């Protein structure tokens, strides 16, 4: 049964080989004369101020939470879509309830302001 996955492995090896060879070739062919100004972090021509790794703006965190919630729900839809033709109206009704709960959640989030980028 896993036989169908057989071509994925050589393709993976091919991809790594191609990528690796290109990178190494570029390293070998290109010059390498680093000096302090060249390797300095780019910050529009100024000397970098403070560390580059800073706090994460909270909006991105919220988007991540939203994504996790929805992604789990999406995963439940995939098997349903696959067997949808066999389940017929029964499957539709059951999934309708799930849809309803999902939409309630989305609507609540919307009106609570969870979808606004800036509060």
């Amino acid at each position, binding site marked *: 049964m896993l*036989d*169908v*996955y*057989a*071509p*994925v492995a*050589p*393709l993976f090896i*091919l991809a*790594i080989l*191609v*990528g690796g060879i*290109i*990178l190494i*070739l*570029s*390293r070998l*062919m*290109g*010059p*390498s004369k*680093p000096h302090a100004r*060249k*390797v*300095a*972090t*780019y*910050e*529009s021509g100024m000397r*970098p101020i403070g560390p*580059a*790794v*800073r706090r994460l*703006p909270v*909006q*991105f965190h919220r*988007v*991540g939470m939203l*994504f996790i919630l*929805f*992604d789990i729900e*999406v995963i439940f*839809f*995939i098997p349903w*879509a*696959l*067997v*949808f*033709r066999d389940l*017929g109206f029964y499957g*539709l009704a059951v*999934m309708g309830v799930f*849809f309803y709960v*999902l*939409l309630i959640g*989305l609507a609540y989030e*919307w009106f609570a302001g969870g*979808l606004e*980028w*800036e509060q």
Partner: protein
Amino acid sequence: MEQLYIDLENYLGIGTDSVPEVVRLAIAVLVLGTIFLLAPILTIWVERKVAARFQNRIGPNRTGPYGLLQSFADVLKLIGKEQIMPAHADRIPFLFAPLLMVVSVIMITAVIPLMPNYIGADLSIGALYFVAIGSLSTIAVVMAGWGSNNKYALLGAFRTVAQLISYEIPLVFSLLVPVLFAGTMSMVGITQAQADLDYWYIFLAPASFLIFLFSNLAEIGRTPFDLLEAESELVAGYQIEYSAMPWGMFMLSEFLHAFLIGPLVAVLFLGGWDGPFAEDVPVLGVVYLVIKSMAVYFLGMWMRATLPRFRIDQLMEFNWKFLVPLSIANLLIASFLWELFPEPAGGGLVDNFPRFIVMGGSSLFTLMVGLEFLRRKSVEDRERIARLIDEKNYPLATADQTGVAGD
């Protein structure tokens, strides 16, 4: 995979008994990989030419006939450039990010059915594989942004992740519509279902097609969704500290990914290799697939040339308040109507015509309703901003509003 062997035997004259299986597998994969690795070089040329025409320019025309060799010249130049490792960079993520990006994109090519009986791997979860492996590039972007030790790069990486994971939701919801129609996730199965029916799923779900296209454009980060690069604010986003071929690999995988969106959309909604005589003459299938892919790709280029970039809040609201509800509604409506109007036996364009009207019509109607909401929202926003300008007396406003700017 057996199908691929059979084709190879036919086309290349490799006997089943004379060569061990590993070699045949390797050759088959090599053929597939080479086709797709050479594709972006041509696509970049097409893209540059078309973009030039949109901007009333000629585009590359010096290197080789019609500038066809321009991309090769670029690759050669990039190989000869210096690789710079920025100070204080996190070496391992920084070095491996381009590699991961290229690997993730090349591995996608395994599930694209080029013609009848020619596919790398006919996985039962083909469409899911495409989306899952394709979004591995998110991790590469985070690695690049984090490893560079650069504020612009890190901010670009944050934005990219937010954008990619947000647009994954409408992407999968609209991907489920053809899956639901065909009853399978295999790319071969979906194509075959459309070929057997003699019509394409775009007629049944035009709105899902558009949502899928948009979320894919966001997924590959093309204008108007190119916030990950955003030249005017983040300089180059996550790839700012990269030079020479590592940078070239980011560009290569971006173009390859953009190109691969074409076959994916074509397989799911436009019937893949399906077309007149495609099943008798398999090579025609490739031609049809390439034509359809390039048509989809052209849509992307057109949008890229026409639309300005989104702001990050607009981007997020466009996704969560427009695409997500719309894609959920479309999935619901499509599944309900599919049950209500069962498929006539045998398929065919004429027998299915009422279904096109009902299902396609309701799909488009939902889209129209959504667009109307969007329009009202944007009018409201514009008026709000105009009021703000009025109240605060910004000199930005026109002369008759403030009486200042005209002097």
